[in-house]
């Protein structure tokens, strides 16, 4: 926001309140009410307004207080945000960033535990990235703001408290690039967002058992970084996808299709995909745990894959 006066923020309670997850804390005091806008609870409208403003060259960062609320703005995101560049024959670009926390939290209930990446992935014209560490959150956010394309940045409710030493200076993370978290030889584990941590926990166990998993945080959910992923598949010949969205129509489902189409000859075994159960997220703690992929299941899947 310092670097580019066209960047503004809009969302519910982002300004005076400081943001419900404190992401925008301090910005309103620094940049004022016209650049950090507290909107009424009207997602469809303010998302549409952000897109309209972007059409003229402003660079809004629109926050869904919870990603799930953006379902109310689906039409704007799909039809206007995604399609206007194309339907106008290239006249308008929509340099907007739509971001917010999603994913399964700690007993937040069905409506506040949604994973919208699976719903949005078919929209032509948008890019989707998921951050997972303080380092890539800063880098991806900056890259998203600077991109001429509309970017949906998926944050996760449970990852806001992560602490990490990151460079003070300006840097970006490539929007289309996956992140190599742990190189290995035996199996390629593809994951993103919070599941990265479950995978790394499982990796510890796997290493003790003598396995050497290669863990890639795909980060870019649309388009997939098939270059990094492909190189990994060519090396290990086995793929396990671990994701938090639901099995049906999820990111994993698309990834399986993409890998099979492009790298089928390199696979020694069918691709395995661990996803959340196809159910609304229950409130009860035990049920919620069973809905989401746990490290023990990841370990078991790798063992099965590597037989």
């Amino acid at each position, binding site marked *: 926001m310092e670097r580019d006066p066209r960047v503004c923020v809009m969302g519910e309670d982002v300004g005076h309140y400081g943001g419900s997850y404190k992401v925008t804390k301090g910005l309103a005091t620094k940049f004022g009410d016209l650049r950090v806008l507290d909107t009424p609870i009207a997602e469809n409208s303010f998302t549409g307004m952000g897109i309209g403003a972007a059409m003229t060259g402003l660079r809004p960062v629109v926050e869904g207080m919870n990603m799930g609320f953006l379902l109310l703005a689906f039409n704007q995101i799909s039809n206007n945000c995604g399609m206007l560049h194309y339907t106008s024959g290239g006249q308008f670009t929509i340099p907007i960033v739509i971001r917010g926390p999603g994913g399964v939290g700690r007993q*937040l209930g069905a409506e506040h535990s949604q994973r919208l990446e699976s719903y949005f992935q078919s929209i032509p014209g948008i890019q989707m990235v998921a951050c997972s560490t303080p380092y890539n959150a800063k880098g991806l956010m900056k890259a998203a703001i600077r991109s001429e394309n509309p970017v949906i940045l998926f944050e996760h409710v449970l990852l806001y408290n992560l602490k990490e030493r990151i460079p003070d200076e300006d840097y970006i993370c490539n929007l289309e690039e996956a992140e190599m978290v742990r190189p290995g030889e035996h199996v390629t584990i593809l994951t993103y967002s919070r599941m990265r941590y479950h995978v790394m926990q499982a990796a510890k166990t796997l290493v003790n058992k003598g396995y050497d998993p290669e863990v890639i945080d795909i980060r870019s959910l649309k388009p997939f970084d098939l270059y990094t992923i492909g190189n990994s598949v060519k090396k290990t010949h086995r793929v396990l996808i671990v994701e938090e969205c639901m099995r049906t129509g999820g990111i994993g489902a698309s990834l399986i299709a993409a890998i099979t189409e492009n790298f089928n000859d390199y696979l020694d075994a069918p691709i395995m995909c661990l996803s959340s159960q196809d159910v609304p997220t229950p409130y009860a703690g035990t049920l919620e745990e069973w809905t989401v992929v746990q490290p023990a299941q990841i370990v078991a899947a790798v063992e099965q894959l590597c037989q």
Partner: protein
Amino acid sequence: MALSHLAASASRSTSLLKPLSSALSLRRPISGDNSPLTVETSVPFTSHQCEAPSRSVETNPKELLTFFRDMALMRRMEIAADSLYKAKLIRGFCHLYDGQEAVAVGMEAAITKKDCIITAYRDHCTFVSRGGTLLEVFAELMGRQAGCSKGKGGSMHFYKKDSNFYGGHGIVGAQIPLGCGLAFAQKYSKDETVTFALYGDGAANQGQLFEALNISALWDLPAILVCENNHYGMGTAEWRAAKCPAYYKRGDYVPGLKVDGMDALAVKQACKFAKEHALKNGPIILEMDTYRYHGHSMSDPGSTYRTRDEISGVRQERDPIERIRKLILSHDLATEKELKESPMPEPSELFTNVYAKGLGVE
């Protein structure tokens, strides 16, 4: 630990089991007293596109005592939920209703269980006023099987089909079209019943409200839209979110009434009026001027966007339970002592009596 708790509460629980009339002094058994009493509401009603009902409300001692007891129960229930949340026995989101009890209680007094109520996520007390038990409330909040949604819904998803309570909704404003749908079904089946669709001042700026209102007016549906205006949409004050915070007027062609939501009798009068209106003329908006003592939810301290003086000021001057207490005392219906001893189950006590050890309650 459960046993010692039981022993200590033995004397209290025996008074719990006594019928109401014997727990109070036998001088004035007001439990069965239906003798009519007329009380004036705190302020007159303000109306939009209709004639306001009279300020004089008909009630009786029994009703007043029921109001007192039900609201006090709700207040204690919400405070117990606060403690349970801080003890991490309730997780996730928990939106408390203390301060707003008069709306739930007054509304219920004006209607029957055949009429429908639907609300958003601040639903614990509305659930209770529709006949939900404390056990169902706390079990649901704590994610147990005995909860009203079998532990799968949580705080924001309380429902009670057999008394036409339709929830319990997490997405702001989404319950309004649902409510108008309930009204449509009522008209379709020629039930002579109405639906109260509750929402907050934050939700009043949702487009779907105006869509549903237009359709309801067009089709003459018996829909009563009730704006529980507690003046804050989480951290945003009403004047910062709405160009026109006179929510009862925003229906434009739909009539509206502004009501003191801290006065249970005013709420009752308004709801009675609204039901009669809706059955004849279609939708009407009720704006309940109310206040929540807690923050938006347990994750919100509630003090960054309003002053503590404001909160304590409302508590002193407009508290709904205090108003009824003063009414009961001033009309000589009961004494302070009788009100204090009037049996009210202690929510957490009820809970300890029911659950076996090992479920994390102790």
